[in-house]
């Protein structure tokens, strides 16, 4: 496993949609390198014959009856929106201009 570089952290921040400042990138790449070195030990015991566990309970496809029940009104759902109009969430443009 390779060490994590400042460019790696910048790329990950872009993927995670966090606009990190230069100072944050400097600080975090050092911290993440130390943390990663420490957590990488999991591979010491994670041999091929061990099955992974994703969840503590063995559950599959849990559903509940498909019945109509009370839900939020449009006003309640929009009450905390940063911006709304015509009973809809109003968001910044989602396409590039060109």
């Amino acid at each position: 496993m390779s060490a994590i570089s400042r460019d790696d952290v910048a790329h990950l921040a872009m993927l995670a949609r966090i606009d990190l400042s230069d100072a944050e990138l400097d600080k975090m790449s050092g911290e993440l390198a130390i943390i990663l070195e420490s957590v990488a030990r999991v591979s010491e015991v994670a041999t091929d014959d061990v099955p992974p566990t994703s969840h503590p309970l063995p559950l599959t496809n849990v559903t509940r009856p498909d019945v109509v029940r009370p839900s939020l009104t449009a006003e309640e759902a929009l009450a905390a929106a940063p911006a709304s109009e015509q009973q809809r969430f109003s968001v910044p443009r989602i396409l590039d201009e060109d």
Partner: protein
Amino acid sequence: MTSDITRASAAELADRLSRKEISAVEATQAHLDRIDAVDGSVRAFLHVDARGALATARDIDQRRMAGEDLHVLAGVPIAVKDIATTKGMPTTAGSRILEGWIPPYDATVVARLKAAGMPILGKTNMDEFAMGSSTEHSAFGPSHNPWDLERIPGGSGGGSSAAVASYQAPLAIGTDTGGSIRQPAAVTGTVGTKPTYGGVSRYGLIALASSLDQAGPVTRTVLDAALLHSVIGGYDPMDSTSINAPVPPVLEAARRADVKGMRIGVVKELGGEGYQQGVRARFEESVQLLVDAGAEVVEVSCPSFEYALAAYYLILPSEASSNLAKFDAMRYGLRVLPEGVDDPSAEQVMAASRDAGFGDEVKRRIILGTYALSSGYYDAYYGSAQKVRTLISRDFAAAFDQVDVLVSPTTPTTAFKIGEKVDNPLAMYLNDIATIPANLAGIPGMSLPSGLADEDGLPTGIQILAPATKDERLYGVGAALEAALNRRWGGPLLAKAPELLTNTTGLSTHATGLSTTALSTTALSTTANGREVRS
């Protein structure tokens, strides 16, 4: 009278309420007065809802007068960690990104408290999105340990533990993803219980790591924990991971308080090197008390626990990076426009909002999780961590073949000083080394006070772990040990805590001669910062 009320356990309050010796309004007002008097220095609450709590109390009093058959805890007030949504009451999860958010619905846990007629005093402070062991990662400033205001009350649920330890509430709700109920209990001399994963609904709890998160009781006694567990536990169709079975018989077990003939295992890997001398000494004394009470104690080995912390700090960030993607500045929460950008795109607004709204620890874990899940690294990091999870579950299964419950110290140390570890993530992560294995395996755990460390006079905790769905064993062992310890101490451990100076002007100051050096003026001068008190 008022101090009698705030010092009483929830069980005692329930008893006095049912006999009409006190009213729910009196019980609630006494705790609101205590909040006014001491929370300027403890800072357990992010929001106090005096009006709502008193309205619930009045309603309960009227219904009781009318002869209605009420829930046993009706009229007993409670504080709720700010991670649970509360309809009409602010919910921040300790984050700027949710500052001012008023949820349109109640978490199932909150709905059950309301259905039981329990007045909700307010919302308690926490590390941002429950990431931390000290409340220092709260965007609204840390809470303070009532035993020494310069020290941390644990985390992430340090607001709940501090509120209960300082008699601002008899009960509180916590959530435990890697120890956030049990570690705060250990360092404040209180009782914290993490039920079996799926034992309490997660619906309406702001998710940190969905396969690890579990809500539970924060209390001063084991019996109170059982009473609260009985209110909030049980099947909820709104949570697909909720266990569809009756709540384990926790109340009966707490009342029986019997360990005769039980087999108790001391986990070899959770203790010894790295554990503070006073923590070890009090733990060993507690184990001896269990032997004296008729239990058989053996040592058991769980060799994979050595890797639990590493696995946890891959699984948790991975799940958190996914769960926190919903804070995108589009439907609710903070929206910040990037500087110097004309007509920014939605993605630019998301990135600017998440940079402004999340604190350092949250950003660190989101980036770490994004890395662990990214193509090329997934197998080595997240995949390997999931295999370690299997090994830890196998260790528990083997141990529970030999014994009924396991015990260990809850934390390696007593409460550390605010500021001591906040700049060293790895040192902070080590606080949860003994509590994390239970979350990875989904089993229940409880921390209760084991005494005071000789070297610093601060509380230490003992942890009890039981097999999944056998939560009642925690209560049987916990209540038996609590009774033996209280006999030895001549009363509860919390009675030894220093008195907090109370103040009627709203500015509270630190009481006694516990290191008086610097109850930092910052703690006093920033009282209003980010803290909202409504009446």
